[in-house]
């Protein structure tokens, strides 16, 4: 008999075919903001933006939905990116001094970035040190046939494009020195090349700026310096004025100078104007400056840095100056780079910038330069998911249109300070069909907010933000911290961007979310044991919240809670904007973090669990139904709140670091430290073998009482003939409690109370934490969600056959028959594979071959980052995929599986994508279904002459794409400029 069983499990060709039609693993898209961006570029012709990261990735964005990604083989920081305008080619410079050429390829509706070739500047026949050939700046000529490369040694080299052939035309400093007057030479070198800029009118002339301050206008044809500009201040960046009659230089002392360019004077000693905008006290360097002429008159000056060192040296600022208008944009993270989107037509006289795009370390900010007051433009992609640390996420597929529209309208009323100007970066065509169903992703954050995102398509779009902080009295009023920005009138600071990782009260953090998509009821639970029931309401309201306290310790004596206090609710009525409005607040005592919640809107019941026990609450009658302590008598750790000390330390650190932020540690240094650590770890692993003690779980492990999962189900608990509402709870020590509920019928809710009676207690022998509980109907399908049957949205579950309950623990899956709770099938994952279950979900897979065929499966993510799919209720292994690196613990912990589709009537689409956080700021989406895959489908029309000789000279002078400035290099190849060093010493 056993042999027979094993054979059947093996290779049944028919079954294999079905499996192929059902399951396929694909990584599809990445949502959110790239982790640690390091370079920015813009193609004004194709209207595409590219972002490079410290991990060597290049991401190209155009119109919403248009995106493609490339990854360097080397995991080195991308320090610079440059587009060849209109060609769909990108040049990248890495930390390791290599140049790479990328091309956008179009393949079956998808655009890909592919590396074409790479190049490394050769050393100069063994004389110079390697630092001399270290590339500092790049200038691809607008004609796209020539690349000028400036080095740390002060030389400028020329490469033919796109072949990367080194031309024998290099300019060395001794050549330049000949044109410089004697008194300027003073025996010192000119320093590295800081900036290379092409003349806006004469393509043969380039401006070379050296670190020491010397600027040279060089004629490529005659190989001769036309003009020299004897700057005496250390140079940071250069930019041409559109006319070509003057240029602007920015300096390390926080000032900028405007220099005249005229053929009559080959040697200019003094600039026309020299300004230190935030003087007279010492200022930090102006890293990059842009000068944009406008038709309306005064030019627009945009520069980053330059703040007074003593008072605002730690701010990340970008200044916009025009005439008397002056705004200092105050960001919460470092400015990586910025560019303006403006007119590139050479015939036009003015730049007339449309928008300013600023890439920060943690977000992308776009400023509308056409509208008075320079408001921000909301970004349709690159949303800073991590604006406050994400503490949990929750996914709802197939959102009803009604709920969708109400959430969107509530969200629209929240955005005041934003314009509705169209998104200015609009290259490419989005070919993806509009999503057939709407999906919501809810993220809970450390600051007590819940953000709603449109997860239907390729780009994750913010829809609505809900804050739960306003119903509590906290030390710090949250609105104040934003408005107090302008402590003084000067400089005229304006807080921009939403990245604010510093939560003032960690108790506000959201731990669990549950939403009923049919009734619009939301359940949100947090770190201080708060459980909030919210109703979706279209009108604004001003009301008191009903507060109830549930003691989960019950009659347990001798325990003292040493953790944080509960959050005191506000005693007066609170105004609420349209949207989700809190109605009931249940506070668990002791106020430990909520570890599990569930909601049954049809029964008006919520259930919640902490490390001490679980409770059941009737939010209609506002009355507690049940509280049960799950603590083991030996479990003292749970009572003392093991994290309390850590938390308070964290809080104090947070406060002291709040102003310091991350500015002092340069990105480069951090990477180096990380690398050193990684190397150290590798060595350690080789030297001392790791030991593991073989010790089985015992009953008195700490935190054994943590409630891990809760579930409501209408099933057979009392006997095999009568079904009724039940509630199930599973704990960390492998204990499952099943309660039979007495829920009054709809019309009697107000009079009759709900009652709960303990029906069964199951102690799993292996005592592993119970990860999930689900009830299966007579056909082995999961029970539908509340309201789905009563609203005819799903087929009624089979109540004839005997139900079963699927209990997934960290080590094994088991299906028990109901009501007897006798084991039917099981799969011992840990005993066989040695891996532990982290996340499970029941998912409906539909076949690519046949519209009507679908199967339910149990999807399981293990601690090794692989995904297993099992059939239910037989629990036979189906497929296994490697998904997440096993070292990526936060990625594994944050994985969310999307639920099944609508039910058996709606076969069109079943989304099988799931999300997990790949870095603190991004979600990666993968799909297990062979049928539906959400991935970017877009088209980019590139005009790429394959033979360089055929190139026609391009006419548009896009002088301002960020390609051209030197500060990129400074930002990334080491922020330790002279100033920073001083900073440390002071």
């Amino acid at each position: 008999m056993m042999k027979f069983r094993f054979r059947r499990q093996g290779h049944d060709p028919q079954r294999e075919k079905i499996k192929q039609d059902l399951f396929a693993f694909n990584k599809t898209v990445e949502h959110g903001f790239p982790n640690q961006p390091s370079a920015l570029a813009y193609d004004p012709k194709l209207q595409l933006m590219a972002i490079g990261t410290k991990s060597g990735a290049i991401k190209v964005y155009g119109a919403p939905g248009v995106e493609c990604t490339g990854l360097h083989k080397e995991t080195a920081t991308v320090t610079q990116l440059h587009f060849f305008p209109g060609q769909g080619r990108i040049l990248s410079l890495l930390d390791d001094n290599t140049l790479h050429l990328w091309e956008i390829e179009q393949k079956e509706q998808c655009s890909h970035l592919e590396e074409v070739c790479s190049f490394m500047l050769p050393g100069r026949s063994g004389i110079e040190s390697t630092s001399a050939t270290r590339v500092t700046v790049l200038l691809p000529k607008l004609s796209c046939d020539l690349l000028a490369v400036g080095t740390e040694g002060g030389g400028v080299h020329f490469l033919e494009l796109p072949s990367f052939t080194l031309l024998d035309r290099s300019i060395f400093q001794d050549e330049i020195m000949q044109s410089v007057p004697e008194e300027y030479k003073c025996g010192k070198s000119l320093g590295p090349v800081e900036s290379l800029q092409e003349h806006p009118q004469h393509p043969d002339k380039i401006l070379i700026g050296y670190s020491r301050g010397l600027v040279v206008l060089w004629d490529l044809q005659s190989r001769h310096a036309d003009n020299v500009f004897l700057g005496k201040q250390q140079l940071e960046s250069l930019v041409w004025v559109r006319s070509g009659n003057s240029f602007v230089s920015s300096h390390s002392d926080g000032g900028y100078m405007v220099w005249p360019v005229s053929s009559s004077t080959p040697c200019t000693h003094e600039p026309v104007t020299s300004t230190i905008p935030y003087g007279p006290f010492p200022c930090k360097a102006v890293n990059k400056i842009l000068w944009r002429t406008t038709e309306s008159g005064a030019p627009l000056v945009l520069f980053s840095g330059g703040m007074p060192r003593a008072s605002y040296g730690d701010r990340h600022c970008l200044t916009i100056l025009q005439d008397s208008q002056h705004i200092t944009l105050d960001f919460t993270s470092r400015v990586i780079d910025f560019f303006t989107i403006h007119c590139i037509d050479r015939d036009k006289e003015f730049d007339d910038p449309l928008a300013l795009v600023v890439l920060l370390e943690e977000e992308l900010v776009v400023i509308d330069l056409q509208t008075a007051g320079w408001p921000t433009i909301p970004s349709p992609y690159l949303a800073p998911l991590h604006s406050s640390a994400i503490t949990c996420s929750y996914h709802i597929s197939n959102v009803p249109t009604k709920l969708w529209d109400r959430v969107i309208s509530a969200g629209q009323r929240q955005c005041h300070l934003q314009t509705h100007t169209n998104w200015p970066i609009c290259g490419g065509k989005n070919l993806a069909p509009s999503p057939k169903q709407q999906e919501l992703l809810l993220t809970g954050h450390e600051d007590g907010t819940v953000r709603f995102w449109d997860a239907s398509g390729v780009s994750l779009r913010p829809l609505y933000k809900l804050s739960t902080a306003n119903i509590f009295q906290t030390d710090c009023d949250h609105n104040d911290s934003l408005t107090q920005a302008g402590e003084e009138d000067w400089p005229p600071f304006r807080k921009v961007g939403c990245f604010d990782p510093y939560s003032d009260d960690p108790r506000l953090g959201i731990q669990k979310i549950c939403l009923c998509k049919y009734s619009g009821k939301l359940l949100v639970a947090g770190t201080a044991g708060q459980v909030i029931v919210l109703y979706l309401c279209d009108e604004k309201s001003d009301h008191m919240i009903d507060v109830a306290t549930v003691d989960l310790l019950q009659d347990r004596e001798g325990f003292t809670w040493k953790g944080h206090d509960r959050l005191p609710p506000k005693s007066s009525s609170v105004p609420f904007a349209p949207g989700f409005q809190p109605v009931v607040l249940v506070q668990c005592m002791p106020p430990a973090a909520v570890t599990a919640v569930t909601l049954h809107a049809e029964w008006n019941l919520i259930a919640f669990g902490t490390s001490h026990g679980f409770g059941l609450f009737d939010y209609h009658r506002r009355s507690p139904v049940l509280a049960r302590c799950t603590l083991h008598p030996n479990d003292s750790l749970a009572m003392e709140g093991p994290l309390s000390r850590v938390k308070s330390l964290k809080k104090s650190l947070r406060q002291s670091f709040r102003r310091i932020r991350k500015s002092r540690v340069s990105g480069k240094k951090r990477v180096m430290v990380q690398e050193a650590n990684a190397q150290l770890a590798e060595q350690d692993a080789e030297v001392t073998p790791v030991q593991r003690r073989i010790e089985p779980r015992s009953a008195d492990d700490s935190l054994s009482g943590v409630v891990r999962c809760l579930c409501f189900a209408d099933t057979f608990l009392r006997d095999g003939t009568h079904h009724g509402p039940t509630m199930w709870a599973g704990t960390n020590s492998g204990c499952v409690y099943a309660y039979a509920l007495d829920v009054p019928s709809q019309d009697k809710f107000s009079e009759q109370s709900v009652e709960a009676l303990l029906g069964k207690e199951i102690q799993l022998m292996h005592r592993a934490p119970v990860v999930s509980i689900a009830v299966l109907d007579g056909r082995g399908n999961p029970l539908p969600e509340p309201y789905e049957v009563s609203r005819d949205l799903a087929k009624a579950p089979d109540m004839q056959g005997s139900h079963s309950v699927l209990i997934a623990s960290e080590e094994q899956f088991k299906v028990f028959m109901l009501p007897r709770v006798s084991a039917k099938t099981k799969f011992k994952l840990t005993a066989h594979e040695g891996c532990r279950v982290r996340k499970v979900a029941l998912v409906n897979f539909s076949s690519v071959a046949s519209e009507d065929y679908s199967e339910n499966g149990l999807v399981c993510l293990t601690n090794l980052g692989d995904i297993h799919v099992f059939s239910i209720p037989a629990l036979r292994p189906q497929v296994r995929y490697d998904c997440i690196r096993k070292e990526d613990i936060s990625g594994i912990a944050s994985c969310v599986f999307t639920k099944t589709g609508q039910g058996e009537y709606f076969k069109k689409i079943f989304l099988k994508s799931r999300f997990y956080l790949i870095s603190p700021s991004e979600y990666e989406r993968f799909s297990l279904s062979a049928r539906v895959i959400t991935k970017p489908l877009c088209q980019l029309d590139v005009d790429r002459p394959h033979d360089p000789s055929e190139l026609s000279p391009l006419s548009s002078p896009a002088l301002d794409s960020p390609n051209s400035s030197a500060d990129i290099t400074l930002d990334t190849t080491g922020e330790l400029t002279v100033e920073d060093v001083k900073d440390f010493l002071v």
Partner: protein
Amino acid sequence: CLPMIRIPEANSLSFEAEYRRFALKKNGAGSFQEFYQLLQTIHRIPGVDVLLGYADIHGDLLPINNDDNFHKALSSANPLLRIIIQRRDEDEPVVFPTNSLQRRKKGLAGLRPSQQKNKPALLIGLPQDFRQISSIIDVDILPETHRRVRLHKHGTHKPLGFYIRDGVSVRVTPQGVEKVPGVFISRLVRGGLAESTGLLGVNDEILEVNGIDVAGKSLDQVTDMMVANSHNLIVTVKPANQRNNVVHRGSKASAGNGSAGSGGSALSHESAHSPASQTVSQCSNSNSVAEGDSDDDDTDLIIESDNLPSYTPHRSLANGNIHGNTPSSGVFGHRPLPQSVSLPSSSSLPTKTSSSQESMREDGNFITL
């Protein structure tokens, strides 16, 4: 029928030798206590604390100190059963070594006391605490260099008592000698289960855990597998010290000497023949302990609450308590349930079973409360 029970020998260092022979009804034997009192009466030594031992079919001297091994002893009588009665002596702990009777017959009895004094740490302990803690299984299907050991935890929460580490193992392949990563025992906890078996040693390479090859698995995975299988752990090792393994396959006589000399497997049965190892090997010789093969070691406890207002009137299980402990032993329906299910009668909390309630059980089936 009246099978004869023969008591040929009552042997002790301080008693004078005395041989008695009497008959006992096999099926009416009753409990160990009754038998103990019966012997005291027959030998006219009421009140004297004695230890009972019997010679099993292989000639091993095994203890009789509870109902289980008493019945086992009775069942091994064919039809005679030799029982040895010794006075309990506190100064000199008594051991029941393998082949002790045979050895004594060969005139080696004189060597025994000195050996005992050399290796006092290897003594098994007082017979009243005796239970099987390990066995070597599958000797007939494994290569001689390997050893498959089953550890019996008997539902205790005592750790298995060893540590494992990563290491490099040398394999001989057709391409030559190859170094592959392996998992090794790095340390034994003093007085722990693993050490007390004498079957596992430091630097033994672990090859399989419950029939699953550990090749390619990480240390954490192997740890998790062992923990998950801890109530019925079967590890296949390649012992670092191969000397014992070769001896094991040698002649009967040398095996006896070898094991007594090294003391390494003082308790190990000559496992190919012992009934215990046969039952075990049935479970595990198919290399995959797949679905349900080891189900019987892993029965969850289901407590039904009987205060549910039942719809059906015939619920007869009601016993009034909120947490009535009516165990429904939830294993596969089609599998014959092992008969022996021991349940402490009163506690309804999942706490430790006191050691007095543990008893040796060959199928390892337990329901703990």
